[in-house]
């Protein structure tokens, strides 16, 4: 068994029932104990590959050997009990009546007695910090809790192999950190799909790059992240995220410094703050809430004594833990929920009747954009809102065409929205809203589930948006790039209202955003160093030696500036 791969894939090909090829000529070996990342743009065949590896699909061509035998009949049934597959949507996986029933499902199928299965389930629930909710029904859990409960159902089986499909998609930084710790502690074989290369860099040693259904590269993770050209070729270049504010670049003594020439490379103010401030004194706020209250139908308070001014042209971010009331606030601003009456729009109180017409002024892009796409074609989808604005057919057509061009979807008019990739769907949802020309654009977690190319495209679109923007996100990079004001929400109230640069330098930042931000910053720094070393091999040796002398192993921000200064002419 020593040198025999755990998974041996040879000449694998698979096509969907409608004949569309998903994978072709895939050769891959995964050894016991390997931690392998499967990366590639949306639609590259990653999920199909893990379904084949776990025996949920049968190969059309080629073969897959698991522990040296093909995944068929008895061996397939036995193998499934040693693998844990975590699917992207936890609702697919939580089919038990209670969290405990669900977690005990796998162990019971492994032949364990009821008591032994409950013991395994309880232990797994302890691992994911859900023991206190063991007998709750899954539909009453929050999204993050569902995701952890799904992982518990897998861990309870004590699998030899963990296969994970986007384990941290749509999780807040705190929950992501819990996942990272658990997965790091797992000592079996791990195969993980994610678009989040920073997360994968922390977790995996190997990286398999899939593109158009075949394997383009089989690297170590360090090699992958250091090769920007390969990342760019496969739509995985996330380097645009790694521009860290000047404040975070440590000096030689490890302390943070502020560069004299203004903000660092990561800071691009998207709004003319002086102009906005000037307009504050002249015009009433675009949207204003005064001592606003919202109580859910079951009596739980949603927003309490809530006051907020959003001025025209302002770009504001809202951050806060899950359950802080962010989504409730958005629903109130859009008129989808109606709380107290103290909501003003352009200085006029919004009456009960006018609440229903707020959609004309406020555009909302949902976190899961599949919830706002329901038409049979992209064209129909675009026209849905425009027709309700009472525009003529010609105006509707022009606006739809303009918006599609703006979000890079010209030519997609006859495509079915459901069949678009995640990034395309997000841009379509944004296009539908932009076409309606709202005074206030609200984005709820716009980067959730997007691959790096999708994120970059979204960023480019939003950079050109010149109206009022309200961004709800855990993504600090997007917050920093797109907004100049940040509100921190907690338990239905705003507890901090800061300029975004101040928020980014706030020492208590980690309290709101979890440890995840710290590890991301740290990992991004390490990756930048790798990329820099890869791109500038001449100075690599000198640079390492120089920084080791200073007692620093990694200091890419300084390294780059020093390289540029000292060896600038010699750089390739």
């Amino acid at each position, binding site marked *: 068994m020593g040198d025999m791969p755990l998974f041996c894939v040879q000449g694998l090909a698979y096509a969907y029932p409608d004949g569309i090829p998903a994978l072709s000529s895939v050769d891959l070996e995964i050894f016991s104990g390997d931690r392998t990342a499967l990366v590639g743009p949306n639609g590259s065949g990653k999920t199909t590959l893990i379904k084949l590896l776990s025996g949920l699909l049968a190969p059309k061509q080629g073969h897959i050997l698991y522990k040296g035998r093909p995944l068929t009949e008895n061996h397939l049934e036995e193998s499934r009990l040693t693998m844990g597959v975590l699917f992207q949507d936890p609702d697919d996986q939580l089919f038990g009546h209670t969290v405990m029933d669900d977690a005990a499902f796998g162990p019971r199928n492994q032949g364990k007695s009821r008591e032994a299965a409950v013991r395994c389930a309880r232990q797994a629930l302890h691992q994911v910090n859900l023991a206190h909710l063991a*007998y709750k029904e899954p539909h009453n859990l929050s999204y993050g809790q569902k995701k952890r409960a799904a992982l518990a159902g897998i861990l309870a089986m004590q699998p030899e192999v963990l296969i994970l499909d986007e384990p941290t998609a749509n999780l807040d930084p705190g929950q992501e950190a819990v996942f990272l710790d658990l997965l790091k502690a797992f000592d079996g074989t791990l195969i993980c799909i994610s678009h989040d290369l920073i997360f994968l860099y922390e977790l995996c040693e190997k990286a398999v790059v899939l593109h158009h259904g075949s394997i383009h590269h089989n690297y170590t993770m360090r090699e992958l992240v250091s090769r920007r050209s390969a990342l760019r070729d496969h739509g995985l270049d996330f380097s645009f995220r790694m521009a860290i504010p000047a404040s975070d670049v440590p000096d030689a003594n490890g302390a943070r410094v502020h560069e004299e020439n203004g903000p660092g490379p990561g800071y691009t103010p998207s709004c003319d703050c002086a102009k906005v401030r000037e307009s504050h004194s002249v015009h009433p706020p675009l949207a204003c809430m005064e001592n606003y209250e919202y109580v859910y139908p079951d009596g739980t308070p949603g927003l309490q004594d809530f006051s907020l001014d959003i001025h025209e042209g302002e770009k504001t971010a809202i951050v806060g833990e899950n359950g802080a009331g962010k989504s409730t606030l958005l629903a109130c601003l859009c008129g989808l929920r109606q709380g107290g009456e103290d909501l003003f729009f352009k200085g006029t109180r919004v009456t009960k009747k006018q609440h229903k017409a707020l959609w004309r002024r406020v555009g909302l892009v949902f976190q899961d954009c599949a919830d706002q796409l329901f038409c049979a074609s992209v064209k129909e989808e675009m026209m849905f809102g425009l027709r309700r604005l009472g525009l003529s057919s010609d105006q509707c057509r022009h606006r739809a065409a303009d918006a599609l061009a703006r979000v890079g979807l010209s030519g997609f008019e006859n495509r079915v929205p459901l069949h678009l990739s995640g990034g395309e769907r997000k841009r379509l949802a944004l296009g539908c809203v932009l076409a309606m020309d709202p005074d206030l654009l609200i984005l709820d977690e716009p980067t959730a589930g997007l691959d790096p190319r999708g994120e970059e495209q979204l960023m480019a679109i939003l950079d050109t948006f010149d109206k009022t923007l309200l961004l709800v996100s855990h993504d600090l990079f997007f917050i920093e790039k797109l907004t100049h004001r940040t509100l921190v929400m907690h338990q239905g109230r705003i507890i901090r209202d800061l300029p975004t640069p101040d928020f980014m330098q706030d020492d208590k930042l980690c309290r709101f955003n979890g440890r995840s931000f710290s590890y991301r910053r740290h990992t991004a720094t390490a990756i930048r160093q790798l990329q820099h070393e890869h791109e500038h091999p001449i100075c690599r040796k000198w640079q390492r030696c120089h920084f080791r002398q200073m007692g620093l192993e990694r200091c890419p921000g300084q390294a780059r500036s020093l390289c540029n200064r000292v060896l600038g002419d010699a750089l390739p």
Partner: protein
Amino acid sequence: MTEVHHIQVPLGYLPLLVLIPAAVAAVAVPWLRSRFRKQVVPGSVPDWSIPPLDDGRGGLGTSLIHRWDVRCKIMTMLAYSFAVASLRHLSAAAAAVLISLAVLLAAKVSFHKVVLRVLALAGFLGMLLIVMPLTVPANPGDTLLVFGSLDWLTVNVRGIVLAATIGAKAMAVALLMEPLLATAPLPVTLHGLSRLGIPEMAGQMVLLSYRYLHVFSHEARRMTVGMKARGFEKKTSLDTLRALGNFLGMIFVRSFERTERVFDAMQARGYKGRFPEPGQLQIRMPDILLTGVWIAVGTALVWFDWMKG
């Protein structure tokens, strides 16, 4: 007793006897329903770390009904419900309601849920109480109430009694639903049904439907919000029909895709066509005794009704 008796009632009593009760019921039922749905008892967050129906470990299920074997419970309550449905007299039906109330007290089930269940029935029973007295044909010996000079508007007292009897029987059975369904976890009840001969696949489908109805309704709600956010309002128009058609189609497609993914997830965890049994069912002497007592009560009720003629 061959004649129909007419009792003249002043016209002013018409609103008092018919319109005002109907109006009060029409306002009170929705109000009570919303009130009971909203009500949150402070400090009443359950401890989810223990099974809520576990007996003897601090859970809620410590009553006799909770400890009763689920098969005996299903069979006995089913037989008793048929016995109640066969009653013909208001007094016997009222006695059945009292017995159901006593069972509710003994089972210590949630008062909120019972009220919501009763309110769900209230509309249907209210309609019976209004319509039957006005529509039951007058037989010899019946008493009709005539309001003032409105000869065409007669209320048959036998209709009132008949409606009240039907209502009481329906209420007596409905009140037993909470002790039947809320005193054991759903998987255990379905397991009991399968042991009584209901196909196991039917039980599995009910269990999955219960879980995924919540998911689908949540999805439908989010999509409705998505439509409203772009100005959708229900109107009597082709446009609304088209939008609703798209909405239903999308819900169907998404649900269909989800069922495939759920099945994949089940297979990935070793599902081979059977759910693991939720626990061992065992009939003990107290179960048989309780079944006997209950059947005796049902028999006594039927005998009492039969004695009334």
